[in-house]
C-alpha cells in the first residue's frame, strides 16, 4: 500500500469520525431546507427564486465548518512532525489532506445539494448541474480552506482567523458557481461560469499546497 493511499485513508477516517462526514452534510442541508422557508416565507414563487442559490451558499459555508481540525489537531498532538518526516513531500501531504477533506465533506454535500434545492422548489431537471457545480466548487473550497487552516496553525481563535483568510478567497468561486447556476436556470449560456469555476478549483489545487507546506514548516519551527 503506498504512503499516499495510507495517508488518504487516515485523513478520511479522521474527517469521518471528527467532522461527521455525510451526516454533517445532510444535517446542514436539512437545516437550510427547514429554516429558509421559515425565514423567507412559504410563498413558493419567492422560494423558487432562491432555491438554487441557497444550497450553493450553504455549501460554501459548510466547507468552512470542519477546517479547524484539518492541520491544528495534528499540530497539537505532535502528529504533524511525523507527517512532515514521512516519505512524501510536505506539499503532497497537504494536498492529500485537502483531497480527503473534499471526499469526506465536499462530495457528500454536493450529492445532497440537489435534494435541498428540490425541497425549496427547484425543478428536478436542474439536479445534474447542481451536483457538478457543487462538486467542483467544493473542491476549490477544500483547497482554499486548507490554505486558511494551515496559515492559522498554532494561533488561538484559529477558526476566526481561518474565516478571515478564506472569505476573500472563496468569493470568486462563489460568484462563478452562482453565475453558472443562475444562467443555467434562466436558460442562458452557462458554460463560461462553470469553466471559470473549474479553472479556479484547479488553480487552487495547484498552488495552495506550496503555501500550506510553507505554513506547516513555519509552525513546526
Amino acid at each position, binding site marked *: 500500500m503506498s504512503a499516499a493511499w495510507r495517508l488518504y485513508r*487516515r485523513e478520511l477516517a479522521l474527517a469521518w469520525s471528527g467532522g461527521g462526514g455525510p451526516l454533517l452534510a445532510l444535517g446542514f442541508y436539512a437545516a437550510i431546507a427547514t429554516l429558509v422557508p421559515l425565514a423567507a416565507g412559504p410563498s413558493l414563487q419567492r422560494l423558487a427564486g432562491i432555491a438554487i442559490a441557497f444550497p450553493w451558499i450553504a455549501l460554501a459555508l459548510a466547507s468552512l465548518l470542519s477546517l479547524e481540525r484539518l492541520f491544528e489537531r495534528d499540530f497539537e498532538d505532535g502528529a504533524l512532525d*511525523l507527517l512532515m518526516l514521512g516519505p512524501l513531500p510536505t506539499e503532497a501531504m497537504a494536498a492529500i489532506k485537502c483531497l480527503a477533506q473534499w471526499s469526506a465533506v465536499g462530495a457528500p454535500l454536493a450529492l445532497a445539494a440537489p435534494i435541498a434545492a428540490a425541497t425549496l422548489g427547484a425543478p428536478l431537471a436542474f439536479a445534474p448541474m447542481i451536483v457538478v457545480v457543487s462538486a467542483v466548487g467544493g473542491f476549490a473550497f477544500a483547497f482554499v480552506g486548507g490554505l486558511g487552516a494551515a496559515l492559522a496553525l498554532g494561533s488561538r481563535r484559529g477558526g476566526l482567523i481561518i474565516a478571515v483568510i478564506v472569505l476573500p478567497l472563496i468569493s470568486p468561486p462563489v460568484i462563478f458557481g452562482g453565475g453558472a447556476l443562475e444562467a443555467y436556470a434562466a436558460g442562458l449560456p452557462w458554460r463560461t461560469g462553470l469553466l471559470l469555476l473549474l479553472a479556479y478549483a484547479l488553480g487552487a489545487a495547484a498552488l495552495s499546497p506550496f503555501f500550506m507546506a510553507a505554513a506547516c514548516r513555519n509552525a513546526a519551527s
Partner: protein
Amino acid sequence: MITGLVGEGLAIRRGERLLFHDIELRLGAGAAVALTGPNGAGKTSLLRAIAGFIAPESGRIAFLGEAGELDPADARSRDTHFLGHQDGLKGHRTALDELVFQAGWTGGDEARALAAAAKFGLTRGLDLAVRQLSAGQRRRLALARLIASPRRLWLLDEPLAPLDARHRALFGDLAAQHLAGGGLLLAAVHDPLPYPARTLELGA
C-alpha cells in the same frame, strides 16, 4: 542508509536567546548519545534542528552514508525516526489503527507493526481507543513504531519519561538490538539510559 551523523559548530537561537553555540556532535553506526542538560538548555531544539524543523543559527548538520554525504532531506524523510515528547496519536482512533498508520507511513507494514506491539506488551490493548490507554501505554505504542519500520537514525525526546522500570529495561534491550544492527540513537534524557551511551551535555 545513514551510517553517521555530524554536527559542527552548531548554535541555535530561539527568539532573543542563544540556547547554545559551538556544539560538536559525532555519531557513528551502532553508537548512542544521550543529550543531557537542565530544562531549557536546548535539548529539544537540537533534536528538532537535526530532524530539519529548525534552522540552526550557525553550524552544519550532515548525514553520512556509505558512499559519502547524503542529501539531508532524503536522509530525514527515509531513514530518520523522530519522536518528540508528544506521542502523535489520535485519542479517538484505536491503538491498532494508529500504530499501523504510523508504521506504514514511515516504511513498515502491518505484520511488523503487530510484531512490534507484541514486543512492547501491547497486544491486548490494541483494539482500545488511544485515549483509554495510560500515558505509559501510549508511549509504548509510539515507541513500537520505531521497531515496526526500519529507519536507522532515532531522534528521541525523553523517550522513557512515562515508562515504568520494567518497560524501561525492555526499551533498553530493544534499543541495544537496534544499535547492534548498525542503528544510531540520539536521545534527550534526564534519567540514566538503560543502554550504553556517550553523553553530550548542553548548557554546562
